[in-house]
């Protein structure tokens, strides 16, 4: 992490009293006990107490705090719900943690323009809940949607299982209000379908809190689909499952969701949740379609034929919404199911071209033998997002090291086959040192130049995303010990 500025630490009292002039002292936390809950986000392997935690209530306060920090060269780390998996809101010892938790109100439900205007710390799911009685919903659905904040979704460009058909946050966002490091308050986009000039809305989305602090969000809402049906299909080989995916796409079907699990995970999740999975299958697939009755039936019929052509060993179509949810129940319990198998596991988050699934899984099997650690794989086949879960025992330092190396090797392989280091969890500090696998110095330099243009002193969320040392070290992944993540009850990925 960036070098600690000792003058900031020694000036704590002065900074505290200055900040208390800007916002109500009851919203400034400085005592060790008060600060402790903010030491980490959901990448719990990393912990660091900040200098202070401030909880602003208005945009004006956010602006004044940022301006104060900019003028006094104090680092600042923004934080939403703290559910991020890549350490994006990990504090620094000499930083002020800007906790946005009090920005928790939905401001406007605008059905005429089919959008919702909300403060950033409203949860993703709360937006859907606010409009569902009128038959609408907000499409991106990261699995942690009951707890993750919409502002955090914007910062990370969160996806979900429906990204192929409905896009990620960036494709469903109409506008934001944002405060820049110098205290400037501005808006990018609004309620109109797009805006012109440089696409700062697009630039801010997924910038992991490095370019500005989001204080208001406007998102598109869609009409809830009338019918949703899913097929649960078993395959004798992963190759067959992969071919089936390719053919579904080639035949012009765009499923709302399409998931594949390997045998290890199918078995583990079935044991855990009794979902009725075909445990003898080497690859198991859930394909879901939404739309009108006729449309969904037409697609399901098509998929049935394609699956049979690709040697499917079993096939079930959901007959009710309950049955459909049961199909998903096992998949959604992948984390706790792995928790039963091993004391610890790490969840990786790479993206790969759909057609490379069999090749990448073969490589992961090889690596699993090489490192002598078991692994189970879940794959968002619709959008190419692969989540290998590596099982290990963190009490054995040797195994932890092996696991980290194993994870880094997987991500490097994802990049090698034309994929990406991270599909939806973000780079944060977790994958920072792997950035040079995906980008060369010139690419990274260009991105850093943008950062400097908006934050010349590099005070806003420093040390995240971009490698400090140009050396690819392997660091930890999402690490779960004994089922204890920061929020163990939240479904993940």
């Amino acid at each position: 992490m960036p070098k600690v500025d000792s003058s900031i630490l020694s000036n704590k009292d002065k900074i505290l009293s200055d900040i208390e002039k800007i916002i109500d002292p009851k919203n400034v936390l400085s005592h060790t006990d008060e600060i402790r809950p903010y030491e980490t986000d959901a990448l719990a392997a990393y912990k660091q107490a900040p200098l202070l935690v401030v909880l602003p209530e208005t945009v004006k306060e956010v602006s004044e705090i940022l301006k104060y920090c900019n003028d006094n060269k104090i680092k600042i780390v923004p934080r939403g719900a703290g559910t991020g998996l890549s350490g994006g809101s990990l504090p620094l010892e000499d930083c002020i943690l800007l906790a946005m938790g009090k920005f928790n109100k939905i401001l406007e439900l605008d059905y005429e323009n089919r959008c919702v205007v909300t403060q950033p710390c409203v949860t993703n799911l709360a937006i859907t809940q606010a409009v569902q009685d009128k038959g609408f919903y907000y499409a991106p659905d990261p699995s942690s949607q009951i707890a993750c904040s919409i502002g955090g979704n914007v910062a990370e460009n969160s996806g979900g299982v429906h990204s192929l058909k409905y896009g990620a946050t960036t494709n469903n966002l109409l506008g934001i209000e944002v405060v820049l490091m110098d205290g400037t308050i501005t808006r990018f986009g609004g309620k109109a379908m797009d805006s012109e000039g440089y696409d700062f809305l697009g630039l801010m989305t997924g910038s992991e809190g490095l370019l500005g602090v989001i204080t208001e969000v406007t998102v598109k809402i869609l009409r809830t689909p009338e019918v949703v049906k899913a097929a649960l299909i078993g395959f004798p080989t992963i190759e067959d499952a992969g071919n089936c995916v390719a053919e579904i796409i080639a035949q012009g079907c765009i499923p709302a969701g399409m998931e594949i699990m390997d045998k290890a995970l199918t078995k583990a999740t079935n044991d855990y949740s009794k979902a009725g999975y075909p445990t003898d299958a080497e690859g198991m697939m859930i394909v879901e379609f939404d739309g009108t009755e006729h449309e969904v039936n037409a697609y399901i019929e098509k998929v049935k034929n394609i699956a049979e052509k690709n040697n499917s060993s079993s096939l079930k179509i959901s007959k009710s919404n309950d049955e459909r949810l049961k199909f998903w129940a096992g998949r959604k319990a992948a984390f706790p199911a792995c928790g039963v198998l091993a004391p610890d596991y790490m969840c990786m988050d790479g993206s790969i071209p759909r057609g490379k699934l069999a090749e990448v899984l073969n490589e992961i099997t090889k690596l699993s033998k090489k490192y002598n650690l078991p692994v189970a794989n879940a794959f968002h086949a619709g959008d190419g997002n692969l989540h290998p879960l590596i099982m290990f025992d963190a009490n054995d330092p040797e195994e932890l090291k092996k696991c980290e190396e194993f994870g880094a090797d997987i991500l490097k392989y994802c990049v090698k086959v034309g994929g990406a280091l991270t599909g939806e969890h973000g780079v944060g500090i977790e994958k920072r040192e792997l950035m040079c696998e995906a980008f060369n110095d010139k690419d990274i330099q260009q991105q850093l130049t943008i950062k400097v243009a908006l934050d010349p002193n590099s005070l806003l969320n420093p040390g995240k995303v971009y490698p400090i040392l140009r050396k690819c070290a392997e660091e930890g992944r999402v690490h779960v010990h004994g089922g204890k993540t920061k929020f163990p009850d939240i479904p993940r990925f």
Partner: protein
Amino acid sequence: MSMEEKQNSQTFLDFNQSTFNPSTREEIVEIIKDCYKKNIPLEINGTKSKNKIGRNFQSEKTLSLSKYSGIIEYKPEELYIKVKAGTPVKDIVTELDKNNQQLAFEPIDFGFLFKGSSDAGTIGGVVSSNFAGPRRFKVGSARDHLLGFQGINGKGEIIKSGGTVVKNVTGYDLCKLLSGSFGTLTVLTDLSVKVLPKPENSKTLIINNPHLKKALEYLGIALSSSTDPSGGVFYPEKFDNNFTFNDLTHKGALTAIRIEGPSNSVDERIKRLIKELSLLENEFSILESVQTNIFWNKAKNLEVFSNSKSNLLRIVVPVSETLNVIQKLKTFDVNYFLDWGGSLIWLELEKINLKTLREIKEIAQEHSGYYTIIKVEEDLKASADIFTIDPIKYKISEKIKKSFDPKRIFNPGKMYSGI
């Protein structure tokens, strides 16, 4: 390098010529490096299909990407195509047709507007201008379909961002930033663009109705309904001569709604839509698939303005504002039609002056939108604001411009004076 190659490369690198036509990325890099060193401003273009859009600006040389063309890789099952920036959109569409796929954001063919016949330009131009067709509200615009790029910044450095996969959150999303930047930040060289299957069938419900207010109501209900339309336009009566279709039973103003998908589902949804809109038997017509394609191409390509000598503005506002905006605009002598379910106003004005332009711009801004001048008399072009920007965004834009193109050699002043 062989003798022949050397000669070739010397030919194009002759800095006395005013237009460079490189065919390799290396050549482009060399040209830009040289221009950076010598402070030579460049006009960047492809086949110039849209070069009338944007401000006039001074450039010493022109860098044309029209020879940097060709499909690098097309993976139908991975839903992307990777192409060189100078590739004609027409070639891409032809290639995608073979696999029954398409560029779902419907790039606008500005040829009809500027020269009276089709000229869809290059994919680099489509991305750089980021204009989207009628499917905008459902699938987004070019910026939502650019998965990754390689390009060259103002210092002559090759940079890249994104990739070929739809889910990628590695680093800043420069694909978005460069879409719609009109070649002022980076010379795009290679683009990976998302492609999608063509719908199996499509039909259009055309409602015979002369009133804007009612049309906006129809469009509002349709776009909020589970019938999931993929297009919604309103043409006032003035344009009725442009639409002659076998299945179109009425003359006069029309509201059109497109429904796409598997055949039986399209019929089911059209039927439902008619019910939801409480339409009487004599109030509507339904266009079959072939006529539907012709209709929406006409809408997308602004064919009603084909060969028009008039000025054309593009105004985008939240749909709740459209009615008020149009009422205010009617005080000027205007023709218009609505796309994007009412959110996009294409405005034609025969006579125009700086005062009118300023007033129209203010109307757009007052109603939370913006305007762009697409076509305007040459003598006004120098002094009018072509794009809308506020002082804060101007300041940020200046900084971003500097971070990509520190010496302002790429299309300087094309979007805003000083950027």
